[in-house]
């Protein structure tokens, strides 16, 4: 059992691969002014002008807006514990600057899911999520691609 979490049995390769194409329910998310102030402050920056949301909102805005959560994404890939997720990469694209107090529509899906082995032979599962954020006028404002490694029996 990993410290801080409950170890779960290793999912089969077929179970992992079947996640590709999974679509989250979708929904909306509004970055509240207070939320943007706290988020921006956490980065060590002053509030941005003209109601701009700090770009790091493109991490949690689409996750929550698409109807899932970090914990839900952990569970979807049958993470063996909350400690077992490693980041491979984040790719954020901004087509229109994100603003606070705007209700964005969000879609989300699993782009790919595959079983891999690291250089020392340990199994991990590489799962890539893609979220798209739309303005109330239905223009694509931003896209977030999140790639995580679900490590197995490594901690």
């Amino acid at each position, binding site marked *: 059992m990993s410290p801080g979490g409950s170890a779960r049995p290793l999912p089969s390769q077929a179970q992992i691969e079947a996640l590709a194409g999974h679509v989250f329910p979708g929904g909306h998310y509004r970055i509240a002014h207070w939320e943007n102030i706290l988020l921006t*402050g956490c980065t060590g920056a002053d509030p941005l002008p003209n109601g701009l949301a700090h*770009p*790091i909102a493109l991490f949690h805005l689409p996750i929550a807006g698409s109807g899932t959560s970090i914990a839900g994404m952990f569970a979807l890939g049958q993470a063996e514990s*909350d400690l077992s997720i490693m980041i491979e*990469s984040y790719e954020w694209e901004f087509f229109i600057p994100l603003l606070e107090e705007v209700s964005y529509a969000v879609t989300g899906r699993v782009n790919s899911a595959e079983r891999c082995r690291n250089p020392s032979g340990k199994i991990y599962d590489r799962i890539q999520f893609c979220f798209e954020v739309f303005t109330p006028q239905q223009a694509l404002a931003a896209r977030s691609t999140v790639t995580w490694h679900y490590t197995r029996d490594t901690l």
Partner: protein
Amino acid sequence: MNGTATYAVGDVLPEWVMAEVSAERMRTMAALLRDPNPLHWDRNAVAALPLGLGHRTINQGPLGLGYLVNMLHAWAGAGCIRRITMRFPQVVLDGERVVARGVITALREERGERIAQCDIRLEHAERGILLEGTASVALR
């Protein structure tokens, strides 16, 4: 940066310093993100890992990325980022001093904007590169 500024491949961006990564800010971020991972708020959970990190919490990936965003904003203005891709070769720990740095690798026109393509990285004086990636930045 102003309207008369000129840019060239190889230009080094002004660095942005986070003098001390804060465990309290990680806790606030964990709440904002609804992030259940105790590595961000429980020093004992980190110390129990076989990684030799000691009693220090691990910064959220988006928070470290935020330092690089702040560097780009300070250089090119808020709202300048068109694309950012980031990898996380090492963790960022509470109490650390980290520096965001970047360099222009290409200049191009894209959708009516002048874009600077940049290599960006977050560095620690002893541990080297913690985060690294690229950014496409609109120049005004």
